[in-house]
């Protein structure tokens, strides 16, 4: 496989992409898992499908449409979330379905031969372009900057939002910002592993990492490393068994999760 990597630029791109998405995915996945916003991130991923459809209909880059839809949804959901958890949960479900439906509708309305949607549903890290890599790099930069600049505030907010408010931290702004950053990350992940498989990369590495880490920093770092391992392992599986890369990556992540929990069980039983 190493020879092939040196030979083919699409494989090099795929590896770069894996590296880049690991950074933002580790951080955002940790926030999502700790805040118990798995449902919300699933909603955002599916809403982005509406944007992809709109992109095709209007003849603009589908990923741009996906970004717009995802960010708008993230903001909408965080405003609703201020009112009540239940309300935002229901709204997420409705956005989720409506986003997918809009995507299907827009694509049906697009004149000419329908585009192949499979790569958005199941992702294809082997076809990422230089533009995709640049977008991933920009998103990494935003996420890393925010996390390093506001690490202590982020940590206290995620640990105890009420106390953060008592300290006069602007928790509404922070919540909105986190949702927007999550939306950006999710769209880039959609490109790599697809809408249906996004959840695997957002949740499994962070969940495993939180078994290991003793501070927010270490959990984020470990989640990033586990994401990278999943991507590399998945790519290797995909290459050697000739199976679709998105599915291989998601399965690899799920296997790491299962493995970690089995080890945890065994250790608490016999350790």
């Amino acid at each position, binding site marked *: 496989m190493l020879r092939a990597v040196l030979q083919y630029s699409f494989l090099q791109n795929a590896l770069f992409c894996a590296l880049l998405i690991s950074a933002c995915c580790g951080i955002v996945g940790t926030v999502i898992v*700790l805040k118990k916003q798995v449902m919300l991130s699933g909603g955002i991923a599916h809403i982005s499908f509406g944007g992809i459809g709109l992109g095709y209909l209007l003849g603009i880059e589908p990923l741009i449409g996906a970004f717009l839809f995802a960010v708008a949804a993230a903001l909408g959901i965080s405003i609703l979330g201020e009112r009540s958890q239940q309300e935002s949960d229901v709204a997420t479900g409705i956005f989720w379905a409506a986003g997918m439906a809009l995507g299907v509708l827009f694509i049906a309305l697009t004149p000419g031969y329908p585009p192949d949607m499979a790569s958005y549903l199941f992702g294809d890290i082997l076809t990422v372009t230089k533009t995709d890599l640049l977008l991933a790099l920009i998103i990494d930069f935003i996420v890393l900057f925010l996390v*390093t*600049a*506001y690490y*202590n*505030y982020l*940590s*206290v907010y*995620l*640990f*105890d*939002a*009420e*106390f953060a*408010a*008592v*300290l*006069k*931290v*602007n928790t509404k702004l922070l919540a909105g910002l986190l949702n927007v950053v999550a939306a950006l990350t999710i769209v880039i992940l959609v490109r790599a592993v697809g809408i249906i498989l996004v959840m695997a990369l957002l949740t499994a590495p962070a969940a495993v990492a*939180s078994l290991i*880490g*003793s*501070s*927010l920093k*270490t*959990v984020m770092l470990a989640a990033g490393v586990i994401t990278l391992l999943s991507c590399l392992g998945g790519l290797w599986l995909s290459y050697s068994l000739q199976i679709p890369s998105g599915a291989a990556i998601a399965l690899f992540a799920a296997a790491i999760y299962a493995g970690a929990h089995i080890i945890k069980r065994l250790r608490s039983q016999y350790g």
Partner: protein
Amino acid sequence: MTQALELKNVTVKYNRTCALSAVNLSAAENDFLAVIGPNGGGKSTLLKTILGIVTPVQGEIKIFGKNNSQYKEPIGYVPQFSSFRRAFPITVEDVVLSGRLKGGGRPFRRYEKNDYRISGDIMDKLQITQLRRKPVVRLSGGQLQKVLLARALAAEPRLLLLDEPTASLDSEAKNRIYEILKQINQHTTIILVTHDLAAISSYIKNIACLNKKLYYHGEPEISEDIIHKTFGCPVDLIAHGVPHRVLRSHGGDATC
């Protein structure tokens, strides 16, 4: 002289439930005010309203002469029911240090020597230094309570609000905390919600009886009659030192 705390005609409602009705209350600088009242009497609501977590439908709240939304200095707060994520990856020391943060969100705010020194001193005083590196998931209820108190004290606030901070502590720890409170009371205004008036009666300077309405505010020598009005049942609070733990919620005559 400006008061440390001043509430004028404060009314708080949750949807339809009226939690506080036209409460007027003030505390001088370095006061030690105990707030007592039955379950559901609005004690926690009072503290949350002062902090700005709950917004009143009517009335104004001043902290050291400033409107409470304008007051940007830290206020120490130990909640009755903690709102934090128990399974969060954070150590005791980092929780205490977080009390040193201030709003405004200065980017790249790192904890400095001074922050470590102050939190270290407080952990020493509360005797939780040996727990420093422990993740909060692995603390007992009482240890956790001390950590939350340490976090509140780490801010070195001029105003400290405590909502039953000693509820799950053993009597030795309780007494130690009261001694610490007495000490910081020399330069800190303390408002303490408690059901355990007997234990604290020698430390406090004033008392407030709250059951939607404020029934009494003044020196900690209250008549049977006031207790009866506040709780809706006679409670021998101070004489026998047996606090009335299971207090019947009393609707009172208060209306919003």
